């Protein structure tokens, strides 16, 4: 019995890793397209034209081949073990965060459990913990590169990630308090209920929490407007200046994997996960409902990812002091207020309502 569970999980891991890596490749294409459109350009549209593939759909393959075939330069002056380790940390920490993310409906009664590690009670805590490990990849890369720009990039990154970790955690706690669980699937189930006919999506129950979470999530993914660790104009490329070929590609993959994780967490915590109001309920276990729910959550995640890219081509980068001001002077107090207010209301409702 247990061996079959193990094999099932291994298959799931393989499928998930395959799908996410493939998605990342295409996300890069999507990002380039959105960048081009935002700048009144067309973007990649040629790759594969001679083979009859439309919309440059094999561009990601070409990009990947380029990454793999490029010369992999390891500068003489780097601290070699750490230099080699850093990209792996970046990509592994980004990958293992997926372990508790429910890709669809979960629970023992479902035919497939859409979660690698089902019923992890501390789900969201695990995601946060693993997500903050990613900072090691960046810091080690910056430090081991033995290059001032990289080092400053790594330092900035550590300060930024550690600062934004706090509002990130605090803003989630409101949702956790309301739903009464750290388990991501339980949080989704809570959001499927209706309050006077309105779906209780997290974004409606915790609007401030959502804004704070989404903002800190940007900082966690190192993307514009918070891409200070790699700001090209100031730092030449920041922590990955000295990396080439596939090592650089791994940082790149890690960044996009983070984007996917963050989008999943946003959708699960604040947009009801697989919930489509008045259509899906936790009780439905038939296979077609499962497919529908997976489709719903995938579409929501896609929208979130596109929104993140849209933001990237809209906002300029923050200055470093503004970045710190935003975290420590605005977001942490706001998150604390949000948390205390939520806790008080939840307590009042539990005492006097039910």
């Amino acid at each position, binding site marked *: 019995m247990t061996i079959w569970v193990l094999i099932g999980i291994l298959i799931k891991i393989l499928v998930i890793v395959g799908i996410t890596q493939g998605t990342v490749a295409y996300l890069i294409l999507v990002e380039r397209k*959105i960048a*081009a*459109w*935002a*700048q*009144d*350009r*067309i973007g990649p549209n040629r790759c594969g034209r001679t083979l009859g593939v439309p919309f440059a759909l094999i561009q990601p393959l070409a990009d990947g081949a380029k990454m793999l075939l490029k010369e992999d330069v390891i500068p003489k002056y780097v601290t070699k073990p750490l230099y080699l380790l850093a990209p792996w940390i970046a990509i592994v920490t980004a990958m293992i965060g997926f372990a508790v993310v429910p890709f669809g409906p979960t629970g023992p009664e479902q035919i497939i459990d859409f979660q690698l590690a089902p019923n992890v009670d501390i789900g969201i805590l695990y995601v946060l913990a693993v997500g903050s490990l990613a900072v090691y990849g960046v810091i080690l890369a910056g430090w081991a590169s033995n290059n001032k720009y990289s080092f400053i990039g790594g330092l900035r990154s550590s300060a930024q990630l550690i600062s934004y970790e706090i509002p990130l955690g605090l803003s989630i706690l409101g949702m956790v308090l309301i739903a009464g669980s750290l388990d991501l699937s339980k949080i989704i189930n809570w959001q499927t209920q209706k309050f006077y006919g309105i779906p209780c999506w997290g974004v409606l129950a915790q609007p401030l929490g959502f*804004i704070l979470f989404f903002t800190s999530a940007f900082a966690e993914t190192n993307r514009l407007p918070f891409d200070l660790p790699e700001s090209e104009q100031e730092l030449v490329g920041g922590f990955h200046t000295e990396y080439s070929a596939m090592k650089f590609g791994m940082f790149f993959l890690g960044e996009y994997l983070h984007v996917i994780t963050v989008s999943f967490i946003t959708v699960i915590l604040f947009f009801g996960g697989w919930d489509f109001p008045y259509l899906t309920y936790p009780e439905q276990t038939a296979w077609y409902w499962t497919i529908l729910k997976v489709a719903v959550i995938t579409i929501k995640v896609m929208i979130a990812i596109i929104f993140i890219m*849209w*933001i990237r*081509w*809209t*906002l300029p980068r923050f200055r470093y002091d503004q970045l710190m001001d935003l975290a420590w002077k*605005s977001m942490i107090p706001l998150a604390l207020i949000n948390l205390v207010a939520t806790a008080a209301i939840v307590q009042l409702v539990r005492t006097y309502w039910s």
Partner: protein
Amino acid sequence: MRLDDPKLKKIEPPRLSLADRFFLPQVAAGLLVTGKHILDVLIKDTAITVQYPEVQHVPSPVYRGVHRLNKDEEGRPKCVACMLCATACPAHCIDIVGATAPESWPDREKYPESFVIDELRCIYCGMCEEACPVEAIELTGLYDLTGLSREEMIFDKTKLLSVFDVTRDAEPMKFTTPPPAGTGPTQALESPVS
């Protein structure tokens, strides 16, 4: 200037309103702008990209591309080897060897025996064109200047004269004759370079 100088103007940064300090209205406004651009390209096809090899870019009439050596009505190079362009050239990329003009050319003393421009060193400033007293050298609208070696990019007299043959109809001599009605800038010409 002392700090209490009455002429000293102190400029305060503008005070941000509460809404400004939340950034969100500005973020929304910015999203609207970029969103409009994205949708415009997607729906109304407003992208300014020129699909280059299939669609040729048409440079503006004052574009400064590859040089040409103009010919007069008899097909002789107009150049009189006065060296003014070579002197004016800030990149020192024009190399002229002048020689006494043949007896049959009574209108001039000298003509260029060789006329070489290193198109790689040239910065396309147009000074040579400005300096020339007889409008013999001009910069054309040809921009697809490519080659497989450095030597290939050093244009000699023959090549420069051939550029004139290619671009004569599209770009009549800029100063001597007024351009005939209906002629525009260089249109997708066969490049003499490649």
